[in-house]
């Protein structure tokens, strides 16, 4: 019990940001099989002949079909990044979400 109180105190120390954890969780739409299919279609529409893109597309599709949506999405996203950079080599990294 004491330990929980201490943990709670320490967890609350660093910031004073608003907490909305009591509200029901909100589903994200970018981690679904539909989004997998949407990205795969985008890649297919490029008609790219790059072997790496083809491999990533195939792996991504297969994983999404097998239920490993997040792993499949990661491969499809990598394929898209390759395609975009190939089309526009001067594309700034800031066009992608800033990492932390």
């Amino acid at each position, binding site marked *: 019990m004491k*330990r929980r109180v*201490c*943990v709670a105190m*320490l*967890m609350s*120390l*660093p*910031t004073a*940001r*608003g*907490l*909305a*954890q009591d*509200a*029901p*969780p*909100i*589903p*994200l*739409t*970018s*981690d*679904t099989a539909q989004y997998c299919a949407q*990205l795969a279609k*985008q890649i297919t529409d490029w008609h790219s002949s790059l072997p790496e893109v083809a491999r990533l597309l195939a792996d991504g599709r297969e994983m999404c079909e097998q239920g490993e*949506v*997040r792993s499949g*999405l*990661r491969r499809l*996203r*990598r394929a*898209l*990044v390759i395609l*975009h950079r190939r089309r526009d080599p001067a594309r700034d990294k*800031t*066009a*992608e*979400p*800033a*990492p*932390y």
Partner: protein
Amino acid sequence: MIRSASLRFAVLYGGLFAASSLALVLFFWWATAGVLDRQVEAAIDADAQFLVERWSEGGVPALVLTVQERLAENVDDDAIYMLSDALGRRVAGNMQRWPAAVVQAGEFYELRVVRAGAQSLAEVRQYDLPGGFRLLVGRDVRGRVELRRLLTNTLLWSVLLVAGLAGAGAFVVRRLFRRMVAEISATAEAIAGGDLTPRVRRSGRGDEFDRMAESINTMLERIARLMDGVRQVSNAIAHDLRTPITRARARLEDAAEHAGSEAELRAAVERAVADLDGVTSVFQALLRIAEIEAGARRSAFAEVDLGPLLADLAELYGAFAEDRGLHLALEVPDTLRLLGDRELIQQAVANLLDNAIKFSPPGGRIGLSATAEGRRLRIEVVDEGPGIPEADRARAADRFFRGEQARSTPGSGLGLALVQAVAMLHDGALLLDDAAPDAASSGLRAVLTLHTGPASVAPASVQAAAVPAIAPP
């Protein structure tokens, strides 16, 4: 209020240790988990800035396209976006609905989200756009939460460890304190019981406790010496005064039994009175020395010129010296000023001259000289008597001390004690030495040094010389 000093020290130590450690832990937290928080916030702000620029360039269509592109290329799968219109409808982004809790722009919120069926935690911020549009930018922070939990566990164990160490340290401090106090207390109790021999034991580490033990032991040595001195003086008083009192009693008894006439009886009484006067004079001398040592006469200090004073003494004692076939030579500057007690200095120099005349063989020479050495005056009396053996010099100024060669000479053994007391009263010292150190038993050199007092009365400075002092009795 804690009544035990050792416990107070222990609590203070433990408290300080725990407080400083806690401060360190909090700083560590701020420098790790805090940095992660700030990095997330910086990433969200940078992202939002880029998106707002796109809005400025191409309006809603450009912003929607950019959000879609970003989500499509978010390999780390941690980005969260949502653009809603003035009616709250979703225009773009990967959140199913606008979170009800997020109501204020510029504020960071932590939300629970579901990503691929698994719950996670996100940090988001709202940005208001023209036309009632609202943009939500956020990051999945589940990795950060995991790391924070790890850090929390580590810091929690650190706090427990610190508490343990603080307790152990406090216990050690308390034991150390109690041991030291117990040692001093045991020594003090033994001394209070009448045994002056115990001393506080030192650890040999040379630390503060050792230095304190050394100070206490030095104090005890000093007390023991003083007690020894008191004992010796008491014995000496009893011994030296018994003789004249016994003699006076014998005279009176003899006269009472055998006096043939009133004249004989009167003569016996007068001799007894003379003996008792001698006893009284010893007590007076003792009281005078005690008075001088108490320092009470320092308040009566006045400016004294030793030049004329010493010349007068030389004239007076020169006559006595001549009577005994001695020659008294004077070598004193005209003026030698100091702040002091004229009467006492006169008495001290007179005692030295009296001793010199008493112990010098007929035809001998006695020297009286005085010089100024910086802030000190140096008065020397040199004779050609037997001197004082080196072994006796340290005790020569003790009350009632009489050397072997002085036993046959009249005196009370208080003369040099008074000189010593006068020297101490004037921040000076009495030094006894051979008149000529390279010759054996060629007389005594008694050097009385006196401090001149404030600079306003100091004589012309020559050269300050360190003068060894005889320890006061």
